[in-house]
């Protein structure tokens, strides 16, 4: 008798098996949901006749390759020290494109001295990179919109070329629907749902450079960015442990624009207002894909990666005595009461 494989949802909070609807509104009957699958711990999958001695081929489940939910990141954090990076920014600001471009660059060559050492989420990367490939039939590189309302994470392991015999650095980089951030800046309840940001080793706050380049939306875009950070600080989502990097994306739109002073309008203003309440605040310009001939594609990506790779998290945490860690292992670090 053929065993009926009963699938379960591995995403926390999803009520699909309790007669509710899928958390992400996915039709699970079409095998489209990355979280809805059988696993070896699911006792219900065992065939009632499994005691018979007939040698039958059974399937061994392999890792899904898709993006990981916060709970699923334990498959990495239980094994390795990891760095959790939360990318924050409104829809279409370039969060997913940044992720995709790191993986695209590694498919062509190392990112300067950083070598690809593996990824448990290659399928997740492949999907996100698809509209940048000739196979998608797109005429210019694009990125599909992230639909997930929950934080999901992509995994990337990298090694320095001179340290190939050492353990790689494991990055877990978030990807989430930008609308969550737009909503959270105006709602205490929604902001407090973003507790994962408290666990992040690095928070990258992306401001859409294309919107800054348009004079009609420039002031609004900058004000909204300030509002988000202010709200996150006032709701204790950001605090003196937060290592924040403010990035203006799509810098190719601003590269030749003399009417915008990055040092004055972004660096000075954000520093004056927020520096004293944060662990660290830094600034950068990014152009993951450049349409400006005078600015190379991938501008700023290497420097950003290098800062994540080289900064020692433990040193940073030891500077803030109010955080007591029982272990340096990421498993403990990422265990959140409300995650």
């Amino acid at each position, binding site marked *: 008798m053929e065993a009926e494989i009963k699938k379960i949802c591995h995403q926390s909070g999803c009520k699909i098996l309790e007669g509710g609807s899928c958390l992400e509104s996915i039709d699970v009957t079409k095998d489209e949901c990355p979280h809805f699958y059988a696993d070896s711990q699911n006792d219900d999958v065992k065939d009632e006749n499994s005691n018979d001695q007939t040698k039958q081929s*059974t399937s061994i489940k392999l890792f899904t390759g898709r993006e990981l939910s916060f709970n699923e990141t334990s498959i990495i954090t239980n094994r390795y020290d990891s760095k959790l990076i939360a990318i924050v920014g409104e829809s279409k600001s370039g969060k997913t494109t940044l992720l995709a471009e790191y993986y695209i660059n590694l*498919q062509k060559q190392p990112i300067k001295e950083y070598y690809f050492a593996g990824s448990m989420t290659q399928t997740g990367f492949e999907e996100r990179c698809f509209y940048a*490939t000739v196979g998608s039939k797109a005429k*210019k590189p694009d990125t599909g919109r992230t639909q997930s309302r929950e934080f999901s994470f992509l995994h990337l392991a990298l090694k320095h070329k001179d340290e190939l015999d050492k353990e790689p650095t494991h990055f877990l980089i978030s990807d989430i629907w930008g609308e969550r951030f737009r909503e959270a800046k105006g709602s205490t309840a929604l902001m407090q749902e973003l507790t994962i940001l408290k666990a992040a080793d690095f928070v990258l706050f992306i401001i859409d450079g294309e919107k800054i380049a348009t004079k009609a939306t420039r002031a609004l875009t900058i004000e909204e960015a300030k509002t988000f950070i202010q709200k996150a600080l006032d709701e204790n989502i950001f605090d003196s442990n937060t290592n924040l990097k403010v990035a203006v994306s799509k810098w190719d739109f601003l590269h030749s624009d003399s009417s915008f002073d990055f040092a004055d309008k972004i660096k000075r203003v954000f520093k004056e207002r927020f520096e004293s309440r944060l662990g660290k605040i830094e600034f950068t310009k990014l152009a993951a894909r450049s349409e400006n001939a005078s600015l190379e594609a991938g501008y700023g990506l290497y420097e950003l990666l290098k800062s994540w790779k080289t900064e020692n998290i433990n040193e940073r945490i030891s500077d803030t005595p109010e955080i007591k860690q029982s272990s340096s292992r990421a498993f403990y670090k990422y265990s959140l009461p409300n995650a």
Partner: protein
Amino acid sequence: MNTNRILFAGMYDSGKTTFIAALWAYVNSDKKDKHLKLNTLANSENEYLDMIRAEWLQCKKVTRTNLNKTENVKMNLLNESNSENVILEIPDISGELFSNHFQTREWTSEYDSLVNQINGILLFINPNDKKNRTNFIADSLEIEKELGGTPENNENVNFATWSEEQTSNQVKLVETLQFIEARKDIVTPIKVSVMVSRWDLIEEKECPSPEKWLQTNMPLLYQYLKCNTNYFKPSYFGVSAQGCDYDNQDDVDKMLEVEPFERPFIRLENEVIKDLTAPIIWLTEK
């Protein structure tokens, strides 16, 4: 007696079966000073091996009859240097299976057992396969720009839908190795002979070393291998199991005039050798 189970991994049409056919012909041949030679045909099912060898000897493209079936190949050989009996167990697996693993994210318990028993991996790559790496639009646009073309936008584009089939071979091969690493208890690194097949076509043109070829043409896989020497110990070989392109009748006619064991060759870092067993010997050395 040493039993060595070797996994021949690689995508469809990467040269796995042709190599097995050439290897069977080679160990059976009368060539002097072979490192590995046939020990005995006793207690072995050699029908499949003889069938693919027959095609190879006639310079015909070696084909698998059943893409879904794994042919269990066993060779009982003798290592001439130490007179040790070497049993090679080489399941001839269709390249489709490796793509299926990537797509379905599962494999059978039989395959899982095999993975847990292997001593080494021969990882085959067809250098002419256009799917070895992904074509990115940005790179095409660069070329187009140099030719004076004007970039178009994405309005009115009928986008294709993503599926696992669109994934490049280098990503799938990295995943194959990651699956093995995830399922196998690796105490000492597994040796991986990276076999860039159809090397005669590369040797004619540019002649980099096989390692350099991989670094240039499949950089993601190369980086992965460089970074994971605690799990996988790679060595790089260019292999021409056929000796020439069978679509070129003049080359085939020339090839039919030489001893079959003289046809194939292996490109090492700095030299070309006629010993087809070199990648196997390296894998089985302690």
